[in-house]
């Protein structure tokens, strides 16, 4: 009797939630195999994040695509980074993920493991990714399946405001081969010369710089097994920042926390409050255009004795993915193919989405590049010689990596816990959330 009731109850509850459940059922449908393009009119949705300038460029590319394929109508959906992912989560939950989306490596495994993304090998009759380098393509795979087409990969660099160094008469060391000691001395000298008006360095701000730091110490944030980071390495990452703050080379903790998450044009580097920072190389052009009064330079990280070589790696800047729930996988694949291979798209985009992975794109845009663009390309060419193996992308369950890092960084920098304790807390929490989804 009792059993009967509970079953009835469960059935009732299940019925009440049918809406949500059904919506989620769309995920994991029949795999797509060599679909045919439709002759009739088709509308596909296409989503990306980014600023207004990127929106204009992307809309231009869409127009070109629609001209080429008059029966396909592309519905553009764009937002800023934060809102983009909230919306992605909710629309995907409703079985309504955009047919084609711009994606980031931090979310790639999360969505792929949950069956939300289209296996691109099923549309290889339309989508040709042979122009891309194998090492780059690998970053778009999850467990050996190609779910994403990388747009490019870029190393992490030190951005230097050379105008400030000149203004205060501080000589920069030879940055083509410099050590951490030289780096710190340059930062300190600038603070002394400017009487504290300018700080030498903005501390590490994201998980990308943590990754490079870990590799310099011969470690990784993630390996194939999951979280590989050791507490010692992470503690040293924070200790280095604390040293800079204590010596005055970096701004105060208050100030660092206040500017956390600031938009690019409000960062200390752009406002000239600090002279050096660690940035993804793909963002260099955006920094330079946000700071037209300064002459910015992009160089490799300092190294020196005890630093592992090959610490740089091409971190995938972003991807194109298609939804597994797409009703028009053929047209979605066609749009991705167009965005990946048509050099006219390369010319329109320029370096807005980072340095392109397709060599034909680079060739097409090179003649028209301005100084900043050429500088960015020169940096990646010089770093390319020193690239090490590409680590696995952020695993499922770790898409909160940056939020988590930010939270523990604040604890460590504010002195609420020692760097060592914060490191253990961070690693435990990260490991738990990766294991929870296994």
């Amino acid at each position: 009797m009792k059993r009967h009731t509970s079953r009835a109850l469960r059935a009732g509850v299940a019925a009440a939630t049918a809406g949500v459940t059904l919506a989620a059922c769309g995920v994991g449908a029949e795999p797509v195999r060599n679909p045919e393009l439709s002759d009739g009119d088709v509308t596909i949705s296409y989503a990306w994040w980014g600023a207004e300038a990127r929106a204009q460029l992307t809309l231009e590319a869409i127009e070109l695509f629609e001209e080429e394929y008059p029966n396909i109508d592309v519905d553009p959906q764009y937002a800023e980074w934060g809102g983009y992912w909230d919306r992605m989560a909710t629309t995907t939950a409703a079985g309504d993920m955009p047919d084609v989306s711009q994606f980031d490596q931090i979310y790639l495994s999360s969505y792929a493991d949950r069956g939300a993304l289209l296996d691109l090998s099923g549309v290889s009759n339309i989508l040709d990714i042979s122009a891309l380098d194998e090492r780059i393509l690998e970053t778009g795979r999850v467990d050996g399946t190609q779910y994403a087409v990388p747009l490019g990969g870029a190393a992490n660099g030190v951005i230097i405001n050379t105008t400030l160094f000149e203004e205060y008469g501080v000589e920069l060391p030879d940055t083509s081969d410099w050590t951490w000691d030289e780096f710190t001395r340059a930062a300190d000298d600038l603070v002394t010369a400017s009487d504290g008006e300018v700080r030498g360095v903005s501390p590490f701000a994201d998980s990308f710089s943590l990754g490079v730091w870990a590799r310099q110490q011969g470690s990784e944030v993630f390996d194939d097994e999951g979280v590989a980071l050791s507490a010692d390495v992470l503690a040293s990452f924070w200790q280095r920042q604390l040293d800079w703050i204590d010596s005055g080379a970096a701004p105060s903790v208050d100030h660092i926390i206040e500017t956390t998450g600031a938009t690019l044009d409000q960062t200390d580097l752009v406002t000239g409050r600090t002279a050096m920072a660690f940035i993804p190389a793909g963002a260099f052009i955006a920094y330079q255009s946000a700071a037209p009064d300064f002459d910015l330079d992009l160089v490799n990280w300092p190294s020196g004795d005890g630093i592992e070589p090959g610490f740089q790696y091409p971190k995938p800047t972003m991807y194109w993915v298609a939804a597994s729930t797409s009703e028009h996988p053929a047209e979605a694949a066609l749009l991705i193919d167009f965005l990946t291979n048509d050099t006219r798209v390369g010319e329109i985009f320029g370096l807005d989405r980072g340095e392109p992975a397709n060599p034909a794109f680079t060739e097409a845009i090179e003649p028209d590049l301005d100084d900043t663009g050429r500088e960015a390309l020169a940096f990646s060419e010089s770093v390319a010689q020193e690239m090490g193996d590409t680590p696995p992308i952020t695993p499922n369950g770790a898409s909160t990596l940056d939020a988590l890092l930010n939270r523990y960084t604040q604890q460590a920098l504010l002195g609420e816990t020692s760097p060592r304790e914060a490191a253990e807390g961070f690693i435990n929490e990260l490991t738990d959330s990766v294991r929870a989804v296994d």
Partner: protein
Amino acid sequence: MSALDEFRSISRSRRRTGPAGTDEETRDNKVAAIFLAPWLLGLLAITIGPMITSLYLAFTDYNLLQDPKFTGLENIRRMFTDDRLAESLQVTFTYVIVSVPLQLVVALGLALLLDRGIRGLSLYRSILYLPSLLGASVAIAVLWRLVFGADGLVNSFLDIFGVDGPSWVSDPDTALGTLIILHVWTFGAPMVIFLAGLRQIPRELYEAAATDGASRRRQLLSITLPLLSPIIFFNLVLGLIGSFQSFTQAFIVSNGTGGPSDSTLFFSLYLYQEGFTSFRMGYASALAWLLLIIIGAFTALNFWASKYWVFYHD
């Protein structure tokens, strides 16, 4: 209850009006149903439906993309070992317990001042009401960062006196304080309600008290406050319910992190992070129900306590 009684007596009297009344009655009921339908549909589709769904989800592991998996009481068990939940409860309770009474005191004080019949009352009232319209907006939260930042308005002011103020929004000890001030600043809505309430108090009572030689203080304590107590109670209940659910201010001022170091991690902000950033929608649903229970308990406590201090004079 009384409205229901009235309704019954009306329908009873209708029935007594004879055979013609029955037709009219059914027609009236139909019309009523049609007029109610939009509201009823809305209630079912956007309130009751999602509530039932979220009650079910509260007992599942649901990552938004795959079918929810029933996990029984796992989410509730998780609450007991969740340090960030404890942190967010502490932050939320501090916020509610400090900011709600403080806001009521400010609103009441200003209402008493304005009630003295100064010239240009409606202008002052509008000006003082303005922050309430803006307070919950994103723009003001952004402004707050600028006012209480290291180079903000507050520190520029302190600088005049040679005080070098800290960055109020990025110090874990003061960040919540800035949000409490933001909440208190939106005193307009309760103030307007207080003003209306003050107008309801019969003037004769004050005249009689003045004749008997009662001081202004005495009048305030023995006439104004007791007669205003139902209004105070109303504002208190609304204020508590509203501030337990505060989200926007903390979200914007901390860039969605609840920082610095979780010092502004409001309950609803944590719930949001769990659901939409960590993809733990099942747990987030359980948290939503916990919030509902907490607010319900506080409101019940309020109603119970009201017997001892709220005075209904009719």
